[in-house]
């Protein structure tokens, strides 16, 4: 994201103008824009005009609109962000108070105004504009008959293609259907790799599987590449890394990112940091359950006691519709920071963020043990979700 101007007063109110430059910036924008903000951007509006003869015609015009945000909608596949709201600045084409949906576009600037830029929003802004954080990876997580071709950026894991085919098993006396099935499957995966991975951008391509699928696939892919003289693959051969995973399901990506050969070869990614933090949480839960809490109530309790050493929190909590709910989480974050705790905001688009989301979205590793709260704090969390 390119920051054009930032105008925030001492009461934390103000506007920021920025230009999204890549798909991931849309995700950042999605996490920044909340209900009640004002958003100014150019857009296409359909206008109806009445000619002198009384017939109507409609035409599309580009105009700049400012709306108060009522809802946002993010399409993870296409990385398109739609923001719906009411017009607050009358112009030639659109009346005051009329509804409009702004589609944020790449390379077109927008201005976001907030009554209050809280710490979480400011962090997000910094993160979005920090170019050093970019470390795009592609990963193919596979097992026989199943492959996920994913793109892993610093805050998103996008499944670009899922190949799910049934491969006949080996049968007594005949493996030909099996072998044919495997070849067809590999061909499909190669197609997906070529279609979805931009080798100019990604730093590396991880191929992960249990057993020998990855080796067999890698071998086959480069055999084919040479046979068909596919320069893209041949020139980028050095970017491929083979890694063990326990399955071809998407959540196995967590193991993949934690593999030492990944962190050694490629810069530490945010996804990796999150995976480590989550592992730390679980090992604390194992070793000293009174130093590992989850669920908002329990974690707040620990935060009050200034006991939180690391706070793990999923970013989707800050996208809460209600301002008060967001404020509660922001306060938790600020409180932990004040007491010198570390805050890790997980991206809900990463597999670890998904897992944390399932685990109530918030968890904490404590500095010192606190007896497990008597009143079943977890209670409210589980009823929350029903």
């Amino acid at each position, binding site marked *: 994201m390119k920051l054009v101007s930032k105008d925030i007063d001492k009461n934390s109110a103000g506007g920021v103008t920025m230009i999204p430059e890549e798909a991931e910036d849309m995700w950042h924008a999605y996490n920044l824009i909340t209900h009640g903000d004002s958003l100014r951007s150019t857009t296409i509006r359909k206008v109806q005009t009445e000619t002198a003869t009384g017939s109507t015609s409609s035409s599309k015009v580009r105009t700049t609109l400012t709306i108060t945000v009522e809802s946002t909608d993010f399409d993870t596949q296409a990385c398109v962000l739609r923001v719906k709201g009411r017009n607050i600045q009358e112009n030639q084409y659109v009346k005051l108070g009329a509804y409009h949906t702004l589609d944020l576009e790449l390379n077109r600037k927008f201005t976001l105004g907030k009554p209050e830029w809280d710490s979480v929003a400011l962090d997000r802004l910094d993160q979005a504009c920090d170019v050093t954080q970019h470390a795009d990876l592609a990963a193919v997580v596979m097992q026989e008959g199943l492959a996920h071709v994913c793109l892993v950026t610093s805050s998103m894991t996008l499944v670009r293609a899922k190949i799910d085919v049934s491969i006949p098993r*080996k049968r007594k006396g005949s493996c030909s259907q099996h072998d044919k099935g495997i070849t067809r499957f590999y061909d499909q995966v190669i197609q997906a790799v070529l279609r979805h991975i931009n080798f100019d951008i990604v730093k590396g391509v991880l191929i992960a599987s*249990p057993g020998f699928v990855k080796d067999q696939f890698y071998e086959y892919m480069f055999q084919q590449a040479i046979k068909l003289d596919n320069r893209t693959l041949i020139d980028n051969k050095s970017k491929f890394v083979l890694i063990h995973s*326990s399955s071809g399901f998407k959540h196995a990506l967590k193991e993949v990112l934690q593999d030492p050969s990944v962190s050694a070869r490629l810069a530490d990614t945010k996804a990796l940091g999150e995976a480590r933090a989550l592992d730390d949480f*679980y*090992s604390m839960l194992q070793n000293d359950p009174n130093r590992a809490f989850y669920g908002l109530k329990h974690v707040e309790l620990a935060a009050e006691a200034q006991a939180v050493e690391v706070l793990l929190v999923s970013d989707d909590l800050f996208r809460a519709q209600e301002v008060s709910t967001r404020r509660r989480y922001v306060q938790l974050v600020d409180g932990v920071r004040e007491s010198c705790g570390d805050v890790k905001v997980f991206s809900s688009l990463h597999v670890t963020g998904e897992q944390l989301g*399932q685990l109530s979205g918030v968890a904490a590793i404590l500095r010192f043990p606190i007896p497990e709260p008597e009143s079943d704090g977890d209670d409210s969390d589980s009823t929350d979700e029903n």
Partner: protein
Amino acid sequence: MSRHRAVRTMNYDDEYDFDDVYGHSVEDDYCVSPGTDQIPEEDETMGDKPEGKGSYDEDYDPLKDSSNFQRPPLNPIDEARLNSCLEEMRNIVGETTPEHLMIDAVLRSDFNYEKALNDVLNSQSGKTTEPKSDIACRPKIFMIGGDEPNEGSVVTAPQEPQVTRMTFSTGNQTNSGFTPEKNSGMDVETESSNPACRDLGDSFASLDVKKSASQAKLDAGDSGSSNNTPKKAPFLLKTKLERLDVKKEYAKRQADGKDFINLVVIGHVDAGKSTLMGHVLYQLGFVNKRTMHKYEQESKKLGKASFAYAWVLDETEEERSRGVTMDVAQTRFQTNTKVVTLLDAPGHKDFIPNMITGAAQADCAILVVNATRGEFETGFDAGGQTREHAMLIRSLGVSQLMVAVNKMDTVDWSQLRYKEITTKLAAFLKQTGFKESDVSYVPCSGLSGENLCHAPKDTQLSKWYTGPTLAEGIDRFRSPDRMIDRAFRMCVGDIFKGMGSGFSVAGTIQAGSVQVGDRLVIMPQGDICNVKGIAIDEAPLSIAFAGDNAVLTITGSDMNNIGVGSILCDPMLPIKVTSRFRARVVIFNIDVPITKGFPVVLHYQSLNEPAHIHRLISQLNKSNGEILKKKPRCLTKNMNAVIELSLSRTVCLELHKDCKELGRIMLRYAGHTIAAGLVTEILDKPSSKTE
């Protein structure tokens, strides 16, 4: 008696509940499960031996009887032609014409469908103008009547697929296992998708005839009319009777002598499983000398001469070149008393999902351990697969186990080493929930072939070992009671293109039976399909039962509408489908505690599906099943708990109390088995999911 049967099955389940769920606990204290109130009946019912296997018509010689049978057996191609003609004809004449008439017509017309159809239509309108030749080529049915089912059986030409058999139940069924159930509900569902057939069979009870089919037909009509059946009824009735009588067919197969078992071979990677079983197959004559010679030559060329016997089972190029089994190999062989479906599982940690698929189909197991010094220990210690495999099969309901202490040649057949290994294993297996009396041990060498099928020749072994050989050990396995009188269930393990029309689906029939011509429903997809053909080990059959590992040829549906893990069901009583359910689980030895939100892979029969633990409902007392804590924050090793799982796609499941085979699940995470469980509650719709 029929109720009795249902109860027995349930109790039997419950008995295994303990072992299943609590077997892994380090403590040996068995608990009382919620189903304990039914236990008292158990002793009595357990003694109720399975339906007279073996004793059934022992001196009946199928060949002798079939000499009366004049129609030549059909080869598979004719079979297929016959089937397709029948299908076409059925489309025209509906179900009103008895199938055997149609078959006759088809055969007479030499598979000319139009001609056959004309014949059928003519004969129907002209009533009984059946040509003489007809009688000659019609299957003959002999009914040797009697009160005892043990004495009575329906005899038709064996191995004669597709011939319509007119079968009537003999009267007063006293054999509990085969008593027809007319109550509704899973437990007591009869064998067919067409329950009416059972009822009709009963109405013809006590047919005590030995006649040609045409006469039997008339008789059937008579006895039918004496039951106030209208005059025209015989035709209608007979159509319904076209389906084979399941219990008779099953009894007939039992009478053929050998019990069927599904045997899985498990153990740590490179323990010698494939070599051992490959050698057994060779010694028993199921691999011919020429093939074996070829394997020896070719494996030598690859520098893998020691794997020659393993090549019998490791058939893919990848497996052979790497010397590692990757997927379960399946083959059939016979010992003196058993027909064995062998499932050679891979030992490599990464292929445990395949191993689970194999083990889910098994009745009994051979655990192969490597006696070589240091090697047994590697396989047995943490990180080795010996323990995990043993725990897995126990949780999957396999209770009979033979341990093959293999590679004894590498330790000079040392009795001391043998003792050391068996002692260690015995303690562990007991803890895992195997009854001591259900576990046996055999020293052997898969490579040299010592003590596999012949008594040991090596004096180093024979001087101290006088027990059974491996093959004798297999003979001692007991074939479990099959649920042939339940609603049909077959879990799809493999889908492939067959020879003719449609496609083939392979898997183990978990419950009920299936016949050529049956309509089935594919779950969870809900597609209806037809069974065109049935084969076991390449031999075409007209009926297959629970426990059989069969290949069904399917038409009427598309190959893409079915996946590995789909379940073929009786359309009247399909399996339940859900994306959310509860299970009572035992947590295995895990490093990291389980919380809600945990992503897992759900293993259910041949299905592997990503799921996550939606919430932890309660932690249970290991020994009595009482709730210790509601909504625990986390679960750690060896705990018992009730958890709720949710999936992004729907899957088929059965409650464990309804069907023990289909009520078991395994959960794995990051390459480790973290829990085994029993399905206790199937939740309808996800009640507003968290996201």
